[in-house]
């Protein structure tokens, strides 16, 4: 049975009896049948998780890449995110979408990473984050003139500069809204903040972007 989020409802089935909604008791289930059902459920869950990984992995990686600007770190955190998700897949009830649930795990992992890095700064031999200029280079060419491309590249660079100056929370909210194009309610669920707080963070982040773009023109 699939719920609103498209997830198969994998509630455990009692091996002894199976009772219908009307209260009609069916014949007791044999151990063999119960094992068969359990194996089927496990197979279904594995298939579900595989499809979740396939459909959401690029998005999680993109969010982590934009947050950290470090390709290797983004890849590592993405792997950790899906590892954690796999371990807790049984506990996912489908209260939110799988994407929101995964994004929440990714945000927490990222938070943990920065906290550990601050505490163990001496362990870091070098920073792998790419330069803002390098990050701004990735602009689809489209059908623009060379001048337009240059201007767009410069503006994207300024947005990166503004994003760099944002607090961790503001950056997360900004990227979820303007890169991942998530709804405010989904951002609130993923970050664990109220919608009002999300709006406030978004407002400050946008003001900073605007100031960066307006102030240096």
């Amino acid at each position, binding site marked *: 049975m699939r719920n609103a989020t498209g997830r198969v409802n994998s509630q455990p089935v009692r091996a002894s009896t199976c009772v219908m909604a009307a209260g009609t008791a069916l014949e007791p289930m044999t151990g063999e049948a119960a094992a068969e059902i359990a194996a089927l459920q496990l197979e279904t869950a594995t298939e579900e998780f595989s499809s979740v990984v396939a459909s959401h992995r*690029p998005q999680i*990686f*993109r969010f982590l*890449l*934009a947050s950290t600007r470090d*390709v*290797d770190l*983004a*890849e590592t955190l993405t792997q950790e995110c899906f590892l954690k998700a796999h371990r807790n897949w049984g506990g996912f009830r489908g209260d939110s979408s799988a994407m929101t649930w995964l994004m929440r795990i990714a945000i927490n992992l990222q938070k943990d990473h920065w906290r550990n890095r601050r505490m163990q700064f001496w362990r870091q*031999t070098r920073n*792998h984050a790419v330069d803002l200029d390098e*990050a*701004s280079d*990735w*602009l*689809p060419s489209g059908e623009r003139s060379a001048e337009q491309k240059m201007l*767009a590249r410069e*503006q*994207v660079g*300024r*947005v*990166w500069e503004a994003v760099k100056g944002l607090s961790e929370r503001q950056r997360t909210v900004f*990227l979820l809204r*303007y*890169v991942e*194009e998530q709804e405010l309610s989904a951002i609130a669920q993923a970050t664990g903040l109220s919608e009002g707080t999300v*709006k*406030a963070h*978004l*407002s*400050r*982040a*946008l*003001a900073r*972007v*605007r*100031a960066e*773009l*307006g*102030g240096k*023109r």
Partner: protein
Amino acid sequence: MSYKERFEGEPGSADDRTGLNEGDLKDSELEQVLSNFRSSVRAWSEAEYSRPRAAAKAARGRSWRLAAGWALGCALVAGGVGGGVYERHQRLETARIAAVHEAEQKRLAVEEKAREEEELLAKVDSDVSREVPSAMEPLAQLMAEDETQ
């Protein structure tokens, strides 16, 4: 849909929440810039996502191995240099002690030789004075008197 419109229907002023009133940048311009930013991030992410990661992982592993190699190399060089310096110092010290010892030996030998020569001269002197021939006895007496005066 503009960014102002997206917030329409929500409580409070849209401008307060989005910061669209600040600065002199128009909404359409900001929208265009944010759209470019989004495209840029997506293009970068797609390129990196499809790129094989094994090389990068190996590079990071290599960097640790390289650092460990450098540390070991530095330790070996420092140990070698330290050992060499210590060895040289020891050799110089031994040479200095040997030189001092040799000089002392020479000095003792010279002193011994001088003492022996002195003794020999004294012996010769006494022998000579003892063996004055009888014919020379008066002259020896005169010399002895001169010395006493």
